[in-house]
């Protein structure tokens, strides 16, 4: 769907740009544009500059492939972080989910996706080789695989555990379970079955 022809050129152009973004359809794009038109110029300027700054100053950390301004990134250089644990995630954004928990203080390694032959992604397309090299040089005790519990996340986790275990490092996987505050009645059967399998001593 394109913006109506009658709109001024710059308006139509910005609606078009916004609607290329994920989760934003043409209606939301139009709302954003009209909102911006009602705001002072300096706010629009700040937004535009922030967008350009992200592209110009953010790059991949050469060690863990997270997004960073400085290479290596703060996670890799912070001496207070525990270098004996590496948490493996699919995408850089997953770091923020783990960091929000406040309970993990180790290092990270971003794969850059999940194994999915349908999408032409095998281990060679991901940062797997670099992970193996890090295990050789950094000698961690534990690798925590924190991929999504879907088919692709599952296959990737199993692949990594078989590849890495012979290197003499413990490989663990996030537990499956019931959401906190959830109700047994409302859990779907597969989640509940996995939670039963992964039960532990009190």
């Amino acid at each position: 769907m394109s913006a109506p022809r009658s709109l001024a050129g710059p308006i139509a152009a910005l609606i078009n740009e916004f609607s290329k973004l994920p989760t934003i359809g043409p209606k939301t794009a139009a709302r954003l544009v009209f909102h911006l038109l009602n705001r002072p110029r300096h706010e629009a300027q700040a937004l535009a500059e922030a967008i350009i700054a992200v592209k110009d100053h953010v790059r991949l950390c050469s060690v863990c492939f997270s997004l960073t301004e400085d290479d290596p990134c703060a996670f890799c250089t912070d001496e207070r972080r525990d270098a004996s644990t590496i948490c493996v995630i699919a995408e850089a954004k997953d770091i923020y989910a783990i960091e929000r928990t406040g309970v993990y203080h180790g290092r990270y390694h971003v794969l850059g996706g999940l194994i999915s032959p349908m999408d032409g992604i095998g281990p060679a397309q991901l940062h797997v080789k670099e992970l193996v090299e890090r295990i050789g040089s950094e000698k961690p005790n534990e690798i925590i695989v924190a991929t999504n519990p879907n088919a692709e996340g599952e296959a990737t986790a199993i692949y990594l555990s078989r590849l890495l275990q012979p290197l003499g490092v413990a490989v663990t996987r996030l537990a499956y379970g019931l959401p906190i505050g959830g109700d047994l009645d409302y859990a779907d059967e597969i989640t509940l079955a996995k939670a039963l399998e992964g039960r532990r001593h009190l």
Partner: protein
Amino acid sequence: MRLDRVALSNFRNYSTLELALSSGVNVFLGENAQGKSNLLEAIAMLGTGKSFRTTRDAEVIREGLELASIAGTATMRAGSVHLSCTVTRGARGTRKVYTVNGQAVRYAAFLGRAKVVTFVPADLHLIDGAPSGRRGLLNSALAQDDVRYFRHLARYQRAVQQKAALLRSGEHPDAALLQIYDEAIVEIGTELMLARDHFVRELAREAERAHAHLAPHERLTVRYHPNVPFEGATRDAVITAFRARLRERAAAEAQRATCLVGPHRDDLVLELDARALDVFGSQGQKRTAVLALKIAEYTVMRDRNDEAPLLLLDDVLSELDDARARALVAVLAGAEQAFVTATHLPPELQAARRFRIVAGAVEAA
């Protein structure tokens, strides 16, 4: 269960429709292309969330519009339930939203709330058509019966697609990865096979009984024909047979770059007096067998759930001769609720609740 009310909005040729329905048989009468099948399709979607006529959901949206909805209220043993399914055509494809009692739910929680058995003219080719049609019958019944089957089926199909893509990816697919997909295929595929084995035993018993009524001098047998044969329906037996078969066929799978082993290649075998029905059966014999199979599907789903599914017949009475049509009407008479489309009222259904459908409008007839 009984569907008390159905409401459509911009669904196919209906702009708006509110219809109170009766228990027993409801007949939708009308000329061709007036909207009889559309109404039946909408009722089926309240159960399965999917159209039985198309895989492109957007087709059900009234031409030139962006949103179609179906809502219904059903009375079940557990009480009254309100269901709705909304299909939206958007810039990024078609979206469906399901609700149960006003709460948006995921498809898996919607599927099977209202169970349906459909019988459409295309089903008349169940016997001599491709195996996918026969697997479709098993999948539709089992997914509505147990949501775990639906989830297993989705995960299984995903694993098969990933493995096939890997096999196609080059001359030397990653062996470690191939093994991971094979393990998933065995683990999940085994659940599908056990569920099908169990279901087909019940289906066969009911189909053979129904067939004996329709054609007392011939004996129908229905058997599950798994792609991986196994002895004794235990999990361990299936897993052992499955792994062995995958090993045997590994070279052929690599060479043909496709998945040759597993329940995605299952079938049903139907025989009449021990002769393959698809090869040796006459048209009439095949129709009788299809009818027996459909009656059995209805009976098994009813008995498994202690709640009768809705029975939906799209224009099939006219496809059957008098004796077979009478047998089907006898089943209709015993159903808690059934919906039938026809161009003319069959004499056996004089007592049914009738609706006349003209150009997307419905009136009690």
